[in-house]
């Protein structure tokens, strides 16, 4: 189905309110329908004029060097028009869920409870994704702004992101249609939803994740032979971003809009031969293997000691020594040193560039495109838009991080820091506040 980049004004069809939520159905481009939900009693009318709209667009898995005027002209144009932070980086563990949580909370995982995509749930005795609303233990921008009388929205392409942020936003879109295997909605559908969100309830702040670039990255075999597929995804996502900009301009909202664009992590490609299985490494020491659970996160493995407490220190020391000796392992860290908190277990192993973890079995992680390790820290990060608040045409040496999103957006609205303060830094040099 081809989609026109031209924006149509969404038609609105209010539905009855089931349970404690109310739903609104919008006709989107191409005749598809977009269903948004809100808390019961939330207003669907556009708020008063004279305010600042702000948007955080996450181009999931995008490397900063992939934004070029030739391949992604709309993103490159946005970057050039605002303030760019070329030294920006993702934070441990360089995975989707923890970095989206850091963006919205402004705090590190040892305070939010969300250190990785996958953890070993000691209570449940299973390795699982952190995709439950109760996994997130810290207030987010999505709910804190509502306390200031503002409205917020979430348009998140990945099912697990929708899962963890749940109903925190005033308005939210449940991603659909979900593609098989990847569990995400294509960017075109996600953009339909964002346009419906902005064209309908028009929240003061909307948090959006565009997942296509990341998903193609995961399936790109080497990063070279199938680079065309990656570039096609980049080009398409750029078109979707262009639709958003055109919509804001076409509806007179651009002049009041601040648009922050960043990625949650970048991407690294490994060869089939460059696979590390910690379970396999520990095979020679059954007493260790049987007492360690592994939560695989692509370029990072989280290791949990499940044996006797008396054996913990010596057992972990032995595991650390064995794992660190592997040629593909960059480092074995203590979670506290990475500010990951108890949920991250006892050890966090990083792989080198060009490698990946695959646990518990060598065949468990067949995808060559991975992140989670330091090689995937660099991210695009820029603040643009038509608002007079945006500092135009600037480049900053400041070390922007994903955790800086919340304090930066919060500053626009005079939001005070949460209890205990932010761990991130407001990149207010990009704004005339």
């Amino acid at each position, binding site marked *: 189905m081809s989609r026109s980049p031209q924006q149509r004004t969404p038609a609105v069809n209010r539905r009855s309110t089931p349970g404690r939520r109310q739903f609104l159905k919008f006709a989107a481009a191409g005749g598809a329908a977009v269903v948004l939900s809100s808390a019961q009693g939330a207003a669907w009318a556009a708020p008063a004029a004279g305010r600042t709209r702000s948007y955080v667009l996450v181009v999931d898995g995008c490397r900063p*060097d992939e934004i070029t005027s030739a391949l992604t002209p709309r993103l490159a144009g946005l970057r050039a028009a605002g303030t760019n932070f*070329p030294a920006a980086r993702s934070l441990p563990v360089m995975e989707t869920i923890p970095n989206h949580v850091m963006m919205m909370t402004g705090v590190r995982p040892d305070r939010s409870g969300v250190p990785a995509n996958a953890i070993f749930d000691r209570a449940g005795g299973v390795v699982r994704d952190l995709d439950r609303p109760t996994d997130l233990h810290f207030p987010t921008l999505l709910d804190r702004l509502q306390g200031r009388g503002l409205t917020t929205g979430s348009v998140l392409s990945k099912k697990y992101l929708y899962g963890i942020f749940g109903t925190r936003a005033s308005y939210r879109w449940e991603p659909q249609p979900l593609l098989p295997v990847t569990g995400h909605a294509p960017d075109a559908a996600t953009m339909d939803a964002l346009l419906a969100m902005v064209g309908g309830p028009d929240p003061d702040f909307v948090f959006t994740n565009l997942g296509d670039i990341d998903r193609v990255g995961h399936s790109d075999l080497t990063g070279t032979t199938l680079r065309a597929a990656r570039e096609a995804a980049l080009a398409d996502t750029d078109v979707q971003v262009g639709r958003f900009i055109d919509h804001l301009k076409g509806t007179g909202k651009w002049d009041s809009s601040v648009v922050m664009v960043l990625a949650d992590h970048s991407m690294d490609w490994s060869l089939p031969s460059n696979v590390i299985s910690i379970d396999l490494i520990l095979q020679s020491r059954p007493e260790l293997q049987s007492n360690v659970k592994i939560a695989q996160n692509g370029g990072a493995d989280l290791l949990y000691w499940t044996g006797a407490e008396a054996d913990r220190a010596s057992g972990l020391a032995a595991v650390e020594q064995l794992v660190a000796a592997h040629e593909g392992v960059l480092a074995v860290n203590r979670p506290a040193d990475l500010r990951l908190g108890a949920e991250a277990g006892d050890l966090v192993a990083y792989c080198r560039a060009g490698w990946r973890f695959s646990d518990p079995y060598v065949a468990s992680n067949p995808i060559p495109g991975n992140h989670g390790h330091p090689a995937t820290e*660099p991210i695009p990060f820029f603040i643009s838009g038509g608002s007079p608040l945006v500092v135009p045409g600037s480049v900053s040496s400041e*070390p922007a991080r994903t955790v800086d999103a919340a304090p930066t957006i919060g500053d626009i609205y005079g939001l005070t820091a949460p209890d205990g303060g932010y761990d991130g830094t407001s990149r207010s040099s990009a704004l005339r506040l």
Partner: protein
Amino acid sequence: MPDGVLLWTRVTPTPESLPGSGAGPDVSVRWEVSADPAFTKVVARGTAATGPGRDHTVKVIATRLAPGASYWYRFILGQEISPVGRTRTAPAAGAPVDRLKFGVVSCANWQAGYFSSYRHLAARGDLDAVLHLGDYLYEYGPGEYQARDVVVRPHDPAHEMTQLAHYRRRHAQYKTDADLQALHAAAPFIVTWDDHESANDAWKGGAENHTEGAEGAWSGRFAAAHQAYAEWMPVRYEPGGQMYRRLDFGSLASLSMLDLRSYRDQQAANGTDPSISSTARTITGAAQMDWLLGNLKSTGPQWKLVGNPVMIAPVRVPSTLSTAELAGVQKLMGGTSISGVPYNVDQWDGYEADRNRVVRHLRDNAVKDAVFLTGDIHSGWACDIPADPASYPATGDSVAAELVCTSVTSDNLDDILNVPPRTGSVAVENAIKAANPHVKYLDFDSHGYSVLDVTAAGVRMDWYVLAERTSASSGSALSTSFNVQAGTGKVTPGQGGLQ
């Protein structure tokens, strides 16, 4: 430093207090630092003792100055007042910095011509500092190394320097050059040594241009060279200390100045010697390598500049050169002429394990914005540093950039081939670029200097070339520019530059 600067001069209190003589009295020299060139706003003053024990050189570290500020300084001995020098403090740690501009020079052979490059840099008036990447002076006597076959200006003493008195006199001779004096007076110098400050192809246990016994013990000669350097150069290094060091410029840049002569193992015989890849050999020494990798990290200032005396980008000899061209390249590089192998084992190419450690560290940790600033090789280069040379032609993946300034005067390829500039060398340049696709720019002929412009958006190197190095009044002209856009680690031609 943000709060202080090093000031340098040399005094001649009595006629017999000649450089290298060991004669003359101990004296006390007054110094003043002012916020204006007329010295109406003196902010620091003091006295410094010197004498024949340090060849009447004076080094002062003036402190309690404001960061990121220009100052003027002078020395007073009796009724004599020195010419006024301008210097500049570094920006405060972590402070935002819009722009830095450095002069970049290396390889100034007195006998091969005049230091017009220094004069042109001094006249700019916009430099935060001058980076001298080594070969500030040469050890040879007249007739041993000059401009092709012509000794433009003979060295003093008129023989190879091998002892402390020789090194002192040679330093003193260089310091009499008006253009060099002008540049020292115009901007602070950030220096490191390469080999010719002691002897050609120096390593920790010897040098190509050192005959053990006949020229004394290398340990004594090396120590004498370093002592004279410490006395005669504006550098904090003192004998027994450590030359490699890091300087920070706010949040914009750090600068790691390397010492690649004091700790390195002996050069391999040639590029086919399997020892070039031995993990037991080092160009940096273990401590300096750990220090360097610690500086090349993702936190701290954005740009990780490295003052790197010899090239780190791999360069292989192409298979398409004529015998004469190969011989010329071999003479220039001092290396092999066998195609497909590293052409210069005095560079990082001869110490592959150390280079691999640096490249792997940059790649594994995704360290961005590392730029190696290099001298030594008497030619201008702009190179990517491939993450993997084998796959680079397909991927273009680069972990850092290398920008190499050419020589102020020292011979390069057209001089060695004895052909006019931009004639016989051009084919060699093209062949090397074809065989080494990460080499984006190569000028084997020109002499001159570079200017490095650093902003958050990118780093740009401008190469300026002299019209005639043997002319004391040579003009200079911009030859080319290459950029390193922030976050890319790749060099690109400078079309309009980064502003």
